[in-house]
């Protein structure tokens, strides 16, 4: 029942957001009356999506689904990567029943959506403020992406350069052996020196 309560908030928000994706209408039309279900076997949870009148309905009932995917929660992320699907199916980590095209079409609708957030924000805050906020967010996003790229580059080059001057195992073992030898020679010299002093 908690999930149903959550759906009462998520469903209208999702449909409103998709209303600002100008390609969504076309994608939704292709999915009209098509039901797609993801069952998470480890959580014993089902989530179904059904498109009715260009609106997504969320439900927990998997009955009558046109395409059902059964997998574990941690494999959920792999669903967006078509190249991994076959591997997961072969290793019995994912079970697919029904039309794969429906799963791909839902994935395309939800993951590759292009929602015009600025337009959405303007309905609440007005055009000017929405534009400023969107500009700041875009700039922050770009800055963050640049910083991340910088960090990536720094870490990658540091690793590569350090690797060139880092001694390998044989060299390290040789060095340790040399230190041990030097230590032993020093001990011998010290012993000889002590004896020499006593005899003088």
């Amino acid at each position, binding site marked *: *029942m908690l999930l*149903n*309560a959550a*759906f*009462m908030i998520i469903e209208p928000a999702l449909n409103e957001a998709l209303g600002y994706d100008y390609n969504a209408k076309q994608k939704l039309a292709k999915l009209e*009356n098509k*039901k797609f279900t993801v069952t998470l076997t480890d959580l014993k949870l089902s989530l179904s999506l*059904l498109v*009715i*009148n260009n609106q997504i*309905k969320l*439900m*927990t*009932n998997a*009955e*009558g689904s046109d395409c059902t995917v059964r997998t574990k929660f941690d494999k959920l992320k792999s669903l967006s990567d078509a190249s991994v699907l076959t591997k997961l199916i072969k290793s019995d980590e994912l079970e697919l029943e029904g039309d794969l095209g429906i799963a791909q079409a839902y994935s395309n609708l939800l993951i590759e959506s292009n929602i015009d957030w600025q337009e959405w924000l303007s309905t609440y805050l007005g055009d000017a403020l929405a534009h400023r906020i969107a500009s700041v967010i875009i700039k922050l996003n770009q800055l963050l992406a640049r910083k991340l790229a910088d960090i990536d580059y720094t870490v990658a080059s540091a690793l590569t350069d350090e690797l060139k001057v880092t001694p390998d195992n044989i060299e390290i073992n040789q060095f340790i052996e040399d230190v041990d030898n030097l230590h032993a020679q020093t001990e011998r010299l010290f012993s000889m020196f002590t004896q020499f002093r006593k005899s003088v």
Partner: protein
Amino acid sequence: MTSEFKSEEKTHFGYQTVDKNDKQNLVANVFHSVAAKYDIMNDLMSMGIHRVWKRFTIDASAVRPGNKVLDLAGGTGDLTRKFSEIVGENGQVVLADINDSMIKVGREKLENLGVVGNVEYIQANAEALPFADNTFDIVTIAFGLRNVTDKDAALKSIYRVLKPGGRLLVLEFSKPNQEWLSKVYDFYSFNILPNVGQLIANDKESYLYLSESIRMHPDQETLKTMMQSAGFDQVNYSNLTGGIVALHKGFKF
């Protein structure tokens, strides 16, 4: 023989015992009285949770486009509205209620919301439904069965109008499954609810009847047995909000 005869002619109206023939009119009076404020009272009484219970019912119905649905005791049409969206132009939803005041309120509300085209309104008694055998894919009765005089007759009548493979969903107040919740719920039902009814709908008696009728309604297991006796298969129920409400589901095969 005489006492047996008498008990057959009597039934409950809340905590009162009344003639079977009178219950229908008494219940009708309650709903004539509360119809105008029904929706706002539902939200107040349940703190909005009735919307989640109804959504859960729609979910459990597995309704699909093109289905034919009977929303019995449909009242102000909350379930009908959702069903109408899903069944689409090729499907049909029949909102049936024994009370014409409730139908009027429901019809006006749905028409104002633009829910037209695939919805029909019928004044009908659940004990003798005016439909042909095997007509509906889904029948729902939400918060209505406890007001029906002869529940067994109603369940048999519903069974008759369902198509083979069709399902009945009974959403109804039931028995809380925790002792502490039961006590809180009793206090709320008999001390707060009637006073809220008085304040909002100027009708304390109707809301006292509501609390009493809930206590007189069969518990989860009894209703399950009643549905099985009426012919339903694979009957099961889900307790909602700790058993304050239960959704019973049964199939006709």
